[in-house]
Protein backbone atom coordinates (compact mmCIF):
# COMPACT_ATOMS: atom_id res chain seq x y z
CA UNK A 1 0.00 0.00 0.00
CA UNK A 2 1.47 3.34 -1.08
CA UNK A 3 2.30 5.79 1.69
CA UNK A 4 -0.30 8.52 1.85
CA UNK A 5 1.05 11.96 1.06
CA UNK A 6 0.13 14.55 3.63
CA UNK A 7 0.36 18.09 2.17
CA UNK A 8 0.51 19.54 5.71
CA UNK A 9 3.71 17.63 6.41
CA UNK A 10 5.05 18.44 2.96
CA UNK A 11 4.38 22.11 3.70
CA UNK A 12 6.62 21.86 6.78
CA UNK A 13 9.42 20.54 4.60
CA UNK A 14 9.27 23.19 1.88
CA UNK A 15 10.71 26.01 3.92
CA UNK A 16 14.21 26.06 5.37
CA UNK A 17 15.30 28.63 7.91
CA UNK A 18 17.69 31.11 6.30
CA UNK A 19 21.29 30.82 7.58
CA UNK A 20 21.27 34.47 8.70
CA UNK A 21 18.50 33.71 11.18
CA UNK A 22 20.76 31.59 13.37
CA UNK A 23 23.27 34.41 13.64
CA UNK A 24 20.51 36.87 14.59
CA UNK A 25 19.15 34.52 17.23
CA UNK A 26 22.53 33.72 18.78
CA UNK A 27 23.50 37.42 18.95
CA UNK A 28 20.21 38.20 20.69
CA UNK A 29 20.75 35.29 23.07
CA UNK A 30 24.26 36.53 23.94
CA UNK A 31 22.99 40.08 24.50
CA UNK A 32 20.12 38.84 26.65
CA UNK A 33 22.50 36.79 28.77
CA UNK A 34 24.75 39.84 29.20
CA UNK A 35 21.81 42.03 30.25
CA UNK A 36 20.65 39.42 32.73
CA UNK A 37 24.12 39.24 34.27
CA UNK A 38 24.40 43.04 34.50
CA UNK A 39 20.96 43.27 36.09
CA UNK A 40 21.90 40.48 38.47
CA UNK A 41 25.06 42.39 39.39
CA UNK A 42 23.18 45.52 40.30
CA UNK A 43 20.17 44.00 42.00
CA UNK A 44 21.63 41.04 43.84
CA UNK A 45 25.39 41.21 44.14
CA UNK A 46 25.61 44.96 44.72
CA UNK A 47 23.17 44.69 47.60
CA UNK A 48 25.20 41.89 49.19
CA UNK A 49 28.44 43.78 48.62
CA UNK A 50 27.01 46.89 50.31
CA UNK A 51 25.90 44.85 53.30
CA UNK A 52 29.33 43.22 53.57
CA UNK A 53 31.02 46.64 53.62
CA UNK A 54 29.15 47.64 56.77
CA UNK A 55 29.24 44.29 58.51
CA UNK A 56 31.16 44.35 61.80
CA UNK A 57 33.57 41.70 63.12
CA UNK A 58 30.90 40.58 65.57
CA UNK A 59 28.69 39.57 62.70
CA UNK A 60 31.57 37.88 60.94
CA UNK A 61 33.46 39.15 57.94
CA UNK A 62 35.09 37.66 54.90
CA UNK A 63 38.86 37.56 55.09
CA UNK A 64 38.98 39.96 52.17
CA UNK A 65 36.79 42.62 53.73
CA UNK A 66 38.69 43.87 56.67
CA UNK A 67 36.30 45.90 58.83
CA UNK A 68 37.84 46.69 62.19
CA UNK A 69 35.33 47.59 64.90
Amino acid at each position, binding site marked *: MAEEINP*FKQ*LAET*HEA*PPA*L*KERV*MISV*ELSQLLIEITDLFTDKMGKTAIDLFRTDAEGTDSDTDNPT
Partner: protein
Amino acid sequence: MSLEETRLLSDHEIVQRIIAEKSNALFGVLYDRYANKVFAKCMSFAHDAQQAEDLAHDIFLKVYLKLGEFRFEAKFSTWLYSITYHECVEFTRKNKRKISQQEGYLAEQLTEEIEGSSDAELLELKIEQLEKLLKKISAEDQALLLMKYQDGLSVQEIMAHTQLGESAIKMRLKRAKDRLVAMSRELITVVAVLLSYQSLF
Protein backbone atom coordinates in the same frame (compact mmCIF):
# COMPACT_ATOMS: atom_id res chain seq x y z
CA MET B 1 32.37 17.55 25.98
CA SER B 2 32.74 18.38 22.32
CA LEU B 3 29.99 19.92 20.24
CA GLU B 4 29.70 16.66 18.32
CA GLU B 5 29.13 14.72 21.53
CA THR B 6 26.63 17.35 22.61
CA ARG B 7 24.58 16.75 19.49
CA LEU B 8 23.96 13.21 20.76
CA LEU B 9 22.35 14.45 23.97
CA SER B 10 18.58 14.47 24.35
CA ASP B 11 16.67 17.74 24.36
CA HIS B 12 16.09 17.46 28.11
CA GLU B 13 19.79 16.90 28.79
CA ILE B 14 20.73 19.92 26.69
CA VAL B 15 18.19 22.17 28.45
CA GLN B 16 19.50 21.03 31.84
CA ARG B 17 23.06 21.85 30.81
CA ILE B 18 22.09 25.26 29.40
CA ILE B 19 20.42 26.18 32.69
CA ALA B 20 23.25 24.81 34.83
CA GLU B 21 26.19 26.05 32.76
CA LYS B 22 24.57 29.12 31.12
CA SER B 23 25.99 27.81 27.86
CA ASN B 24 24.66 29.74 24.91
CA ALA B 25 26.52 27.46 22.48
CA LEU B 26 24.30 24.59 23.60
CA PHE B 27 21.25 26.64 22.73
CA GLY B 28 22.63 26.67 19.20
CA VAL B 29 22.29 22.86 19.16
CA LEU B 30 18.61 23.13 20.07
CA TYR B 31 18.19 25.82 17.44
CA ASP B 32 19.69 23.56 14.76
CA ARG B 33 17.25 20.79 15.64
CA TYR B 34 14.09 22.85 15.39
CA ALA B 35 14.82 25.94 13.27
CA ASN B 36 13.37 24.58 10.02
CA LYS B 37 10.14 23.37 11.61
CA VAL B 38 9.61 26.60 13.55
CA PHE B 39 10.40 28.70 10.47
CA ALA B 40 8.02 26.63 8.35
CA LYS B 41 5.22 27.23 10.85
CA CYS B 42 6.00 30.95 10.87
CA MET B 43 5.81 30.98 7.05
CA SER B 44 2.25 29.65 7.34
CA PHE B 45 1.22 32.68 9.38
CA ALA B 46 3.41 35.48 8.03
CA HIS B 47 2.98 37.45 4.81
CA ASP B 48 6.49 36.83 3.58
CA ALA B 49 9.86 35.30 4.40
CA GLN B 50 11.16 38.43 6.15
CA GLN B 51 8.18 38.54 8.50
CA ALA B 52 8.54 34.80 9.12
CA GLU B 53 12.21 35.32 9.95
CA ASP B 54 11.39 38.09 12.42
CA LEU B 55 8.71 35.94 14.02
CA ALA B 56 11.00 32.91 14.27
CA HIS B 57 13.72 35.08 15.83
CA ASP B 58 11.29 36.33 18.49
CA ILE B 59 10.12 32.79 19.19
CA PHE B 60 13.60 31.40 19.77
CA LEU B 61 14.54 34.35 21.95
CA LYS B 62 11.41 33.83 24.01
CA VAL B 63 12.20 30.11 24.33
CA TYR B 64 15.70 30.94 25.57
CA LEU B 65 14.43 33.42 28.15
CA LYS B 66 11.78 30.98 29.39
CA LEU B 67 14.03 27.91 29.58
CA GLY B 68 14.03 28.16 33.36
CA GLU B 69 10.25 27.61 33.29
CA PHE B 70 10.44 24.36 31.32
CA ARG B 71 9.19 21.58 33.55
CA PHE B 72 10.69 18.48 31.92
CA GLU B 73 7.36 16.68 32.29
CA ALA B 74 6.51 16.89 28.61
CA LYS B 75 8.69 16.72 25.52
CA PHE B 76 10.73 19.84 24.81
CA SER B 77 9.34 19.89 21.25
CA THR B 78 5.78 20.01 22.62
CA TRP B 79 6.67 23.00 24.79
CA LEU B 80 8.50 24.71 21.92
CA TYR B 81 5.60 24.27 19.48
CA SER B 82 3.18 25.54 22.11
CA ILE B 83 5.16 28.77 22.34
CA THR B 84 5.46 28.85 18.55
CA TYR B 85 1.72 28.56 17.93
CA HIS B 86 0.91 31.09 20.64
CA GLU B 87 3.35 33.62 19.19
CA CYS B 88 2.15 33.02 15.63
CA VAL B 89 -1.49 33.55 16.57
CA GLU B 90 -0.65 36.67 18.59
CA PHE B 91 1.48 37.97 15.74
CA THR B 92 -1.38 37.48 13.31
CA ARG B 93 -3.81 39.26 15.65
CA LYS B 94 -1.45 42.22 16.06
CA ASN B 95 -0.84 42.45 12.34
CA LYS B 96 -4.56 42.08 11.82
CA ARG B 97 -4.51 39.59 9.05
CA LYS B 98 -7.86 40.37 7.61
CA ILE B 99 -10.05 37.86 5.98
CA SER B 100 -12.13 39.99 3.68
CA GLN B 101 -15.84 40.10 4.43
CA GLN B 102 -16.49 38.58 1.05
CA GLU B 103 -14.15 35.64 1.67
CA GLY B 104 -15.56 35.07 5.14
CA TYR B 105 -19.15 35.14 3.85
CA LEU B 106 -18.29 32.82 0.96
CA ALA B 107 -16.56 30.38 3.31
CA GLU B 108 -19.62 30.34 5.59
CA GLN B 109 -21.99 29.79 2.65
CA LEU B 110 -19.92 27.01 1.20
CA THR B 111 -19.55 25.34 4.61
CA GLU B 112 -23.31 25.23 5.02
CA GLU B 113 -23.82 23.74 1.56
CA ILE B 114 -21.51 20.76 1.91
CA GLU B 115 -22.42 17.80 4.06
CA GLY B 116 -19.02 17.39 5.57
CA SER B 117 -15.61 16.78 4.17
CA SER B 118 -13.44 13.81 4.85
CA ASP B 119 -9.82 13.89 5.90
CA ALA B 120 -9.00 12.28 2.56
CA GLU B 121 -10.32 15.25 0.62
CA LEU B 122 -8.32 17.63 2.80
CA LEU B 123 -5.15 15.63 2.36
CA GLU B 124 -5.58 15.60 -1.42
CA LEU B 125 -4.97 19.34 -1.61
CA LYS B 126 -1.79 20.42 -3.34
CA ILE B 127 0.84 22.18 -1.22
CA GLU B 128 0.58 25.52 -3.03
CA GLN B 129 -3.20 25.48 -2.76
CA LEU B 130 -3.09 24.50 0.91
CA GLU B 131 -0.62 27.27 1.73
CA LYS B 132 -2.88 29.92 0.16
CA LEU B 133 -6.09 28.58 1.65
CA LEU B 134 -4.64 28.37 5.18
CA LYS B 135 -4.09 32.12 5.12
CA LYS B 136 -7.77 32.67 4.35
CA ILE B 137 -8.99 31.22 7.64
CA SER B 138 -8.48 32.58 11.14
CA ALA B 139 -5.08 32.16 12.76
CA GLU B 140 -6.61 30.12 15.58
CA ASP B 141 -8.22 27.67 13.14
CA GLN B 142 -5.02 27.52 11.14
CA ALA B 143 -3.08 26.65 14.28
CA LEU B 144 -5.58 23.87 15.11
CA LEU B 145 -5.28 22.34 11.65
CA LEU B 146 -1.49 22.45 11.74
CA MET B 147 -1.41 20.87 15.19
CA LYS B 148 -3.63 18.03 14.05
CA TYR B 149 -2.47 17.36 10.49
CA GLN B 150 1.12 18.59 10.52
CA ASP B 151 2.25 17.75 14.04
CA GLY B 152 -0.08 14.76 14.42
CA LEU B 153 -1.34 15.81 17.85
CA SER B 154 -4.37 14.17 19.41
CA VAL B 155 -7.32 16.27 20.60
CA GLN B 156 -6.11 15.83 24.19
CA GLU B 157 -2.65 17.09 23.25
CA ILE B 158 -4.18 20.05 21.42
CA MET B 159 -6.16 20.86 24.57
CA ALA B 160 -2.86 21.17 26.43
CA HIS B 161 -1.72 23.83 23.94
CA THR B 162 -4.93 25.83 23.84
CA GLN B 163 -7.52 27.11 26.24
CA LEU B 164 -10.24 25.15 24.46
CA GLY B 165 -12.20 22.14 25.63
CA GLU B 166 -12.47 18.85 23.76
CA SER B 167 -15.82 19.50 22.08
CA ALA B 168 -14.81 23.04 21.09
CA ILE B 169 -11.63 21.75 19.47
CA LYS B 170 -13.49 19.02 17.58
CA MET B 171 -16.09 21.49 16.35
CA ARG B 172 -13.53 24.08 15.27
CA LEU B 173 -11.42 21.46 13.54
CA LYS B 174 -14.41 20.19 11.62
CA ARG B 175 -15.49 23.67 10.55
CA ALA B 176 -11.97 24.71 9.60
CA LYS B 177 -11.49 21.52 7.59
CA ASP B 178 -14.87 21.94 5.88
CA ARG B 179 -14.04 25.57 5.02
CA LEU B 180 -10.72 24.65 3.44
CA VAL B 181 -12.29 21.90 1.37
CA ALA B 182 -15.21 24.11 0.36
CA MET B 183 -12.88 26.90 -0.76
CA SER B 184 -10.74 24.47 -2.72
CA ARG B 185 -13.84 23.09 -4.48
CA GLU B 186 -14.92 26.62 -5.31
CA LEU B 187 -11.47 27.37 -6.65
CA ILE B 188 -11.57 24.28 -8.86
CA THR B 189 -14.99 25.32 -10.19
CA VAL B 190 -13.80 28.85 -10.96
CA VAL B 191 -10.71 27.56 -12.75
CA ALA B 192 -12.82 25.10 -14.76
CA VAL B 193 -15.22 27.89 -15.79
CA LEU B 194 -12.35 30.16 -16.81
CA LEU B 195 -10.76 27.38 -18.86
CA SER B 196 -14.04 26.65 -20.61
CA TYR B 197 -14.43 30.33 -21.53
CA GLN B 198 -10.86 30.37 -22.76
CA SER B 199 -11.52 27.46 -25.08
CA LEU B 200 -14.37 29.39 -26.76
CA PHE B 201 -12.00 32.05 -28.04
